[in-house]
């Protein structure tokens, strides 16, 4: 590199920076003064910033700045304000009965808005963000309810869950007829075809309806009721409709009858405050699935 002051470009007569690429040299055209001054000012500004605001991480803490300002404290204040604004509305929500909330369009909108966010945070992992469910996780948009679909029943389920271990939880178990040796494999196949027939699905060749009826009467009626209409008291699904939680094909049914089913829904009482649980119940009911 040459000393750029002595390196004069022969064409323009100006000094160059001395940088050279493939024989092309860069003219020394300084930045405008105002630009350079602004640049220095930003540096000065940033130093001031370090001093006034929290900036440098130390080993176990950080420099706190001159005034102890912290964005975290700011957020806390904002959140408190928000609570104050929302508080009154949530109190109104907590005071109203479930049925009244649904009839008051303003409360309904509030409950749906609140319910929707809480649902997204807590329920979506199992039931899907729109409540569409998945295999083994009920779709909350339809009209089939294991534990009942009235506002009160939905709220109860949210509060205490199903097989959750909570004292008031829904209990009820689908027995493992195959695993426990209650039914023989060919009887299970017959039972599977019987329940398919109940909801109008085709049965396999050689299926003996009379035998199916007998197996069902002896083993299943206790929970699923006469004719397989189900029983929300025990969470026993209706076997005559078009909705199947685990699937309606023969293989799935054989698996269900052989192994049993016992889906778990956690209890939300204690984890969510009562007004929020109320909002959730209204939200879920308004998804379209309520009865």
């Amino acid at each position, binding site marked *: 590199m040459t000393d750029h002051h002595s390196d004069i470009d022969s064409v*323009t007569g100006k000094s160059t920076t001395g940088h050279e690429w493939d024989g092309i040299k860069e003219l020394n*055209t300084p930045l*405008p003064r105002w630009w350079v001054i602004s640049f220095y000012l930003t540096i000065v500004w940033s130093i001031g910033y370090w001093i006034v605001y929290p900036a440098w991480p130390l080993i176990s803490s950080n420099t706190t700045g001159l005034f102890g300002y912290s964005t975290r404290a700011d957020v806390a204040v904002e959140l408190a304000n928000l609570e104050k604004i929302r508080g009154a509305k949530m109190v109104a929500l907590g005071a109203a009965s479930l049925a009244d909330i*649904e*009839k*008051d*369009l303003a409360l*309904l*909108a509030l409950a*749906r808005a609140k319910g929707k966010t809480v649902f997204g945070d807590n329920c979506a992992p199992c039931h*899907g*963000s*729109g*409540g*569409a469910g998945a295999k083994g996780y009920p*779709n909350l*948009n*339809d*009209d*089939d309810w294991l534990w009942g679909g009235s506002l009160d029943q939905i709220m109860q389920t949210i509060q205490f869950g199903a097989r959750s271990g909570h004292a008031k939880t829904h209990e009820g178990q689908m027995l493992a007829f195959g695993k426990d040796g209650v039914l023989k494999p060919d009887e299970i196949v017959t039972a599977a075809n019987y329940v398919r027939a109940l909801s109008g699905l085709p049965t396999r060749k050689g299926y003996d309806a009379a035998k199916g009826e007998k197996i069902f009467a002896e083993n299943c009626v206790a929970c699923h009721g006469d004719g397989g209409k189900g029983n929300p008291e025990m969470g026993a699904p*209706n076997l005559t*409709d*078009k*909705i199947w939680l685990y699937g309606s094909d023969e293989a799935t049914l054989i698996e269900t009858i052989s192994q049993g089913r016992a889906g778990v829904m956690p209890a939300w009482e204690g984890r969510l405050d009562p007004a929020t649980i109320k909002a959730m119940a209204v939200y879920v009911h*308004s*998804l*379209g*699935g309520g009865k």
Partner: protein
Amino acid sequence: MNRTANPKELPLDDDNGPLYVAQKKVYPQSTSGTFRRIKWGLMAFCLGVYYFLPFVRWNRGLGAPSQAVLIDLPNSRFYFFFIELWPQEVYYFTGLLIVAAVALFLMNSVGGRIWCGYLCPQTVWTDLFYAVERLIEGDRRERMKKDKSSDPMKLERISEIVLKHSIWLLIGWWTGGAWVLYFNDAPTLVKELVTFQAPMLAYVWIGILTATTYLLAGYMREQVCTYMCPWPRIQAALTDEWALNVTYRYDRGEKRTSVKKAAELRALGQQVGDCVDCYQCVAVCPTGIDIRNGPQMECIQCGLCIDACDNVMTKIGRPKRLIGYDNDVNIQRRQEGKAPIYRIVRARTVSYSAIIAAVGGIMIYTLATRSLLDVNVLHDRNPVAVRLSDGSIRNAYTVRLLNKSGYDRVIAIDASGPVNATIHVIGIDSVTPDRPMIVVPRDSTSELRLLVTASVEGNPEKSIPVHFHVTDIGLGEVASATDNFVAP
């Protein structure tokens, strides 16, 4: 642009010059004449509208703001006299922007950069700031002398400078103050501002606009027009040989010499121009250029050099408009001894006018016929469809009803499309089944969750259009929206 001038008479652009030039301070001299009068008039008009419009009242009835022009950000409304716009109607602003842009093109194709010279806020405020400066420090010569003098500052000079900057800041402050009044009820805000009750944001904005006005009009001035504004670059592409531009008619001006010399030469029967090289046109120019060098990017077409030169021409008894709004075509024609022609009606101007008329017409039409009742429908996406226990299909929609009128309405909702469909709105126990009704308060929206259920039989398609009609059962006004009913 068609350069019909003899190239030898025009200086070449200096491509070898420095990229950045330190600002040369311009000291425009005061002048008087037609264009100066037009500029004063337009300045008074523009500033008058800007400063006082927020105080104009408009009665919209109880509960609605009574300010004629108001940008109501918290409630997302824009009020302009009898017009009230909702966020859904931003396309009116799009239309307005299109009209504004094409109007600018039209102005440009008729009179060059006249927007810049007469109406641009930068010009208007800079002109005002110059007027203040002139009033306090005197005209061009005095200001130059005062700036150059190396005498120790006398008290008189200091007080002059302080006074000038105070008035500048005052104008800037008033400019910022007027700005925030457009976003709030003006009389209330003024009261709050003086009692320090106004929101912090208002003070911040006043501060910002005071600073920008002071800096842009007091210091940056013509630098904004030449270095910061994109318009001179664009307008060069929009102008054509018929566009009128402030032009030095060198067909009258060569050769330039003093009055006495010119008289002598004329007596000898020699060719001599009207320009007496008095530099008046340069002295008054707010961008500090010499228009006699031909069309230049810096020229904002303010016409002040026309006034200045006209005054000189009157004094020496030569015809006026040695500098005037003209184009190169005519200079060429005059040199060839032909009469100049001016063409305002041409393909370009006609098409611009047509676009303005079309867009403006559409806007006026839609504004006049727009409905004050509206409905938006959003289909649930997750899940798009649900199968019910009896095998039928249900789709859910979020329906938003907009009542833009000034009275509460009772709205009935119908849905049609899928065969044997039933509808249900969450929260409404329909008295009339399948035609739920709801009260939507004035100037507000209601969001509903609506379920459409239909059996598979008779609806074999995977997707069927479903039409939602909402009816004001009092006035019979109807609005509709269409979405789809889909099978899982």
